[in-house]
């Protein structure tokens, strides 16, 4: 029994060591005193991707890096920066992948254009069908 537990203990020990033991920055888990600024920061955090736990936003994640990114966002907003500036700063470093609100470019244009095209196609199709029935 004891021997069977050894691999399990090793695995758990590895997992426990894979993060820093230092406490997170104060602003990672503390809201800003100004409710307006906190609301801005929170809205921004919900649209920024956690880079270690991709698929989560930094507002949702407990990863070390997400915590430090929240602290960075709050610090910059508290210092008077606008959310768009903070987003731009991060995009300059990590590319568009870091934001869940991708800017319009040739690569992302189909996301906006396709629904319009499909809707137009649907209208055309419907018109033809209804005309046939009327006749």
């Amino acid at each position, binding site marked *: 029994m004891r021997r069977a537990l050894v691999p399990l203990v090793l695995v758990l020990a590895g997992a426990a060591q*894979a993060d820093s033991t230092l406490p997170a920055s104060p602003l990672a888990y503390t809201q800003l005193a100004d409710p307006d600024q906190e609301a801005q920061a929170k809205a921004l955090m919900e649209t920024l991707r956690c880079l270690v736990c991709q698929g989560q936003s930094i507002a949702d994640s407990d990863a070390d890096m997400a915590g430090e990114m929240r602290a*960075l966002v709050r610090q910059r907003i508290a210092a008077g920066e606008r959310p768009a500036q903070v987003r731009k700063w991060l*995009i300059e470093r990590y590319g568009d992948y870091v934001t869940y609100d991708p800017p319009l470019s040739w690569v992302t244009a189909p996301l906006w254009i396709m629904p319009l095209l499909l809707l137009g196609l649907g209208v055309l199709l419907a018109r033809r069908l209804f005309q046939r029935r009327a006749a």
Partner: protein
Amino acid sequence: MKKLLIWLPLALFLLVFALVVNGLIEPSDRIVRSAMVGKPLPALHLPPMLADRPGIDTKTWPKGKPRLLNVFASWCIPCVAEAPQLMKLKAAGVQIDAIAVRDTNPDVLAFLARNGDPYARIGDDRAMRAQLSLGSSGVPETFVIDSRGVIVDQHVGDIREEDVPKLLAALEKAK
């Protein structure tokens, strides 16, 4: 027309099948690479982590020779795995600076005593600010900085034996 339509389900099946097989053979790349490659080093001012060598300050960044900037942490297990390769690079005459992420002085001292010490300078990046400024999304990562202080390459993850010649070539190109 109907004869052809009979084949449509099979064609659709093959299309989906090909998509799945492709996803299995070549899983999508989840690595987030820095968008700072090709740009000058961002302003970094990190206090020294150890008493015996300076921290990282881009104002006094030594130019004229390419260098490696290694982002590491004593609590990071792949960093232990890449340590021997960094020692090899150091032995080949490469200057290696480091950013210690969310780390403490005693932990870094113990890490270097155990795994070798390839670093000329070590900056203390307690709050990950330097790491975020560099567009680095984890530890370990290694940036190749050319002789003018421009980031020219990024290695994500631990440096394996087969990566050493690639890094040496990148450093040679960065002269």
